[in-house]
Every structure is written in structure tokens, then in C-alpha cells.
């Protein structure tokens, strides 16, 4: 049942100060990274319901990580908290060596195993910006090995993240991907649209978070992290616009080698289309995007629809 319940329960856990509320506020509440410095600790559990892609609803449980709260989670609240969970996100502060943290993680895994065995587990090794660039892989690998050892054989996916760069968008784009019931429908439609426009690639972003929902590329590109970077760049710009009491509807950027279109697409998405063929008139591509809007409204709805 959980897989198709339109109400998706997402647990966000980890030691106090690990950065849970910070990342949630940046992704879902339009905070700038520097705004998070003002956040206080979370008192017990902060539950928020987030509308996503129009019809999906995420119940995000941001669980304050101070020791006395943690104890409650694993004792009196265990049965309710860990029931019906679709996704567990556990956040580690990369430079914390506190052994209690790993024990808490272990307890989460056990509780999930008991109450929501089908849940997806993601571990974010966070605040990577505090580690010198050349030592990041090593620090991440070390922590990942430790996490895997403590995951009771369950399948976990680890990400290295920081609120100061695009890694946060990569992790969360992958996570929400698991919450979209029929994402294949989207990819197939994007594939057809991409060929029809003779584009290099097309990417669909969720409108308010700018997380990547789906993409299709007809050409190889050297930078595998480009979509997260675009999420980050465009989201920052969106926030600057809101300082000027404005919202951006569309943008095109070009130079000799390429033309990029970012446009409001369906009621819950933005689309980005990249073209490097200078023989295709930008006005034509723009028209193709406009014409596809209505069709994709239905495709997005189908991708989030619950199978009966």
C-alpha cells in the first residue's frame, strides 16, 4: 500500500546540528544557504506537508536530533514514528566522530526494518564543504563503509552533500525520484519531445523546488553534474527575483555554441531545452515548447497518478 499512497511519509533524522532543518528549508522553503545560520534547534518533530508536482503530497517529518528527543523516538514513539515510512533520510555531519550518531543510525535501521520494511533509505554525508577538496572522497568513502556496515544488509544509498553547492540538489533530486510513481511515462515523453525538437537534451524541473524530475539527452555531455548545477543556479536566481518582488517566467541564454531555454512548462514544472544546432531558429524551438505545454500537463498528471 505504501508505494501508492499519495501521502508520502519522509523521515528526516540525524544528530542535532547535522543540518536537517537547513537542507529542508533551502529545498522547500526558499531559504538562501546563509539564512540557515539563524536556525535554532528543532524542538521534537516538525511535520510539514509539501505539495509536489501538483498532486503528490510529501509528509516531511523533520525530527530534532537532541539526545532526549532521540531516546523518545526509539522508545515511546517508535511504533508510530517508523510506521508507513516511504523514505528515511539520515544526515551525518561529516566531521563528527561521535559514536552515538552511528548507534542512532543503527536504531533507525532496526526500527524501519520492523515497521516499514519497503522504505528506501538514504544517507547524506553532509557539510562536505568543511573538508578540503582533495580529502573529500576519502572522508566520504570511510563514512560510507561504516554506514553500510551498520545497515543490517539493507540497501542504502549514500550521498555527499553541502548546502553551499549543487550536491544538495543532486541528492534530493534522486530522493524525490523514488516518490514519483510512474516516472517512466515522463522520460518516454521527454524522449519523443527531444527528438521532435532536434534538441541536445531536455530536463524537467519541479516548479517550486527546482529539483530535477526527469531528463532525456540525445548527446553525451562531459559534465555529469550539470543538472544539479542548473537547479542551483536557477533557484538562486529565482530567489533574487523574489527580492525584487518578481518571478521569472522564462529565460534564454546563448553564445556561439549553444542556446538554452528555461521556461514555465506545466502548472507544476519548468522545462530546460538545450540546442547546439544553430540552424534551428530559437523562435521555432520556443513555439515547440509552447505547443507541448498542454500535452505535458497530462503526462505529468499521469506520472504522479496512483495505480489502482
Amino acid at each position, binding site marked *: 500500500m505504501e508505494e501508492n499512497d499519495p501521502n508520502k511519509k519522509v523521515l528526516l533524522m540525524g544528530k542535532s546540528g547535522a543540518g536537517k532543518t537547513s537542507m529542508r528549508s533551502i529545498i522547500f522553503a526558499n531559504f538562501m544557504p546563509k539564512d540557515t545560520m539563524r536556525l535554532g534547534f528543532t524542538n521534537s518533530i516538525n511535520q510539514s506537508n509539501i505539495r509536489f508536482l501538483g498532486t503528490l503530497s510529501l509528509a516531511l517529518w523533520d525530527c530534532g536530533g537532541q539526545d532526549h528527543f532521540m531516546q523518545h523516538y526509539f522508545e515511546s514513539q517508535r511504533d508510530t514514528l517508523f510506521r508507513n515510512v516511504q523514505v528515511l533520510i539520515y544526515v551525518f555531519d561529516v566531521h563528527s566522530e561521535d559514536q552515538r550518531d552511528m548507534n542512532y543510525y543503527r536504531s533507525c535501521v532496526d526500527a524501519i526494518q520492523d515497521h516499514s520494511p519497503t522504505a528506501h533509505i538514504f544517507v547524506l554525508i553532509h557539510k562536505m564543504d568543511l573538508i578540503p577538496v582533495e580529502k573529500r572522497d576519502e572522508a566520504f568513502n570511510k563514512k560510507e563503509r561504516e554506514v553500510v556496515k551498520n545497515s543490517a544488509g539493507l540497501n542504502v544509498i549514500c550521498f555527499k552533500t553541502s548546502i553551499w553547492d549543487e550536491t544538495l540538489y543532486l541528492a534530493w533530486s534522486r530522493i524525490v525520484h523514488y516518490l514519483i510513481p510512474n516516472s517512466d511515462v515522463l522520460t518516454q515523453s521527454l524522449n519523443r519531445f527531444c527528438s521532435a525538437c532536434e534538441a541536445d537534451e531536455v530536463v524537467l524541473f519541479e516548479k517550486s523546488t527546482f529539483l530535477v524530475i526527469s531528463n532525456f539527452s540525445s548527446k553525451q555531455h562531459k559534465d555529469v553534474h*550539470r543538472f544539479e*548545477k542548473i537547479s542551483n*543556479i536557477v533557484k538562486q536566481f529565482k530567489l*533574487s527575483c523574489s527580492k*525584487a518582488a*518578481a518571478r521569472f517566467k522564462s*529565460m534564454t541564454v546563448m*553564445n*556561439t555554441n549553444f542556446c*538554452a531555454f528555461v521556461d514555465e512548462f506545466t502548472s507544476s514544472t519548468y522545462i530546460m531545452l538545450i540546442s547546439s544546432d544553430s540552424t534551428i531558429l530559437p523562435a521555432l524551438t520556443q513555439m515547440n515548447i509552447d505547443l507541448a505545454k498542454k500535452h505535458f500537463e497530462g503526462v505529468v498528471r499521469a506520472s504522479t497518478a496512483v495505480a489502482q
Partner: protein
Amino acid sequence: MNIAVLGSKRVGKSSILKVVFQKMSPNETLFIESTTRVDEVKIQNNPYTRCTILDFPGTFEISQMTSLERRFLQDSAMIIYVLDAQDEPYNKSLEKLVSLMSEVYSFNPHCKIEVFCHKIDGDMFVNDDVKLGVLNEVSEIVRFDTTERKLPEPSFHLTSIYDLSIFEAMSKCIQKITPGVGHMQNLLDILMSHCRIDKVYVFDVISKLYIATDSTPVDLISYELCSDMIDVVIDVSCIYGVGEDENFNNAFDGKSTSVIRLDTGLTLYLREVEHLLALVCLVKDDNFERHHLIDYNIDRFKEGAKKILDAREKWVKEQEEVKG
């Protein structure tokens, strides 16, 4: 062309230069070490933004200056005097400014003096009245002292590295000592009236200082939007617009163009005008309909700007020859 940056210890001189010219983020400036001798920062972003900035140590005293320091001040077209607005009272620092001015004018009479009332941020300055209060207080004290000593009055700016005010002030300062800026402004005014543009800037793409704008007043909101647009254009172009072994310098080229439409009925339009120089304008949607007209006029502006630039190049060469 030299600009000397002076002021008491820890007022934020080095931070300003790092944030504006070396892309340091403001919170990283907390760890900057105190300057011990004059640091020369060479800026060579494009033909219009070319100068050497001299970062003086806060311990510098005009009464005890070395011959090297004297030479630096002699060669400076401008002195930026930084005052820490969070460190009241200002009297002592302002006395220092006035004695500095009277000394400098004795050997460099054409030097322009700009006062930055700096660190206008944080809880003390949330309200605009308080900011203006500082400006009034400081300018009154200085005006009193300068009239008494028959010195020219300096200009004042309110600045902080935590917003765009420092970029705006620095833009204005560099324009004051750059020949040809007035002509550029005339060209921009013409462009603006021909195409019904609301506001237009010419940006140094690297520092995001504007090297010229039309003669209507600058508001920080439009400046910030245009400056953020440049970030978007450069970042996106660095991903999709450069070949295998090219870099940042190739991202912004002769065909670089961008259009951003806002829901307020305004369009942001960007075009390349020269190597690493961008023209960015705000236009109402209705007027952007005729955007071929805008393009045509921007091309005329480019030709005009090129002429000004060539004349300036010639002038700079001549100056160098005179100096030998």
C-alpha cells in the same frame, strides 16, 4: 591608474578588495590577516576596468610615511578613505582623514577623495534613517573641517560587503577616474530614448561592476537583478557553451545574448558589447516587442563605444610616453 585605499586598522579595506575583485564571499573575510605593508592589486578585467589598487595597512600614518608610500600617493588618481560605521565615535578617524587630505593635496592636488562609511549592515542599520543619519553626521564634520582649511570637499558613500552597495560605490569611483565615461553615458541615454528602455548598464562581466549607465538614478534592486543575471549567463554558458578544452574566457563570446522575462511585465536583456563587457537593460514587455530595433541600436552603441575605447587607448599610451 592608481587608487589608494586608506583608513584605520580593521575597518575593512582588504575585505572590500577581496570581495569586489577576488570573488571572496563576505563571511570568509573574517579570517583575513591584517595588512602589514602596501599591497598592490592589479585589475585588468577588460579595457575599461584597468587599474592598480593600493591596499594600505591600517597602521599607516601620513606624518611618518616612507618615500615609497609618498610615491604611491603621488601617483594615485583617487584615495578611498574607509571609515568603520560600527565603531563610534567617528571624530578621531575623521581628524585623520582631514590631515591626510591637507597633506596629500600639497603634493597631489588633483587627487579625488572618496569616503566609504563602511560596515553599514547588521542590527544597527536595519532602518534607512539610521544609515542616512551616519551619512549626515560624517559629512557635516568633514565639511566643517574642510571649509576651515579651504580644502575641497570629498564625496561620501554608504557601503557594506554584505550587499551590493560596495559594488555600486566602487563602480562610481572607477567611473570618476575613467576618461570617456561621460561619452558612454550620452550614448546610453540616446539608446535608452530611442528604444524606450527603462534602465541600462554596461557591466564588467568579471567583477560585475558597472562601468557606465544612463543618467537616470541607479537603484540597488535593478542593479542586483542585472548583476545576478550575469551570474546566470556565465554559469550556464560555462556548462553548455564551452568546448572540451576551453574555459571561462570562452563562455562569454561575441554572440552571448540572454533574455529573461519577469511576471512584472519587465524583460531583462543582455548582449555582449566588447570582450568581457556586457550591456544589460530592463525593458517593458511592450517595448521589447520591437526587439530588432533594440538590437539595431545596440549595434550602433557598440560602434560608438569602440571609438571611445580606441581614443582612450591612445590617451593611455600618450600618458605612459609622457611619464617615460
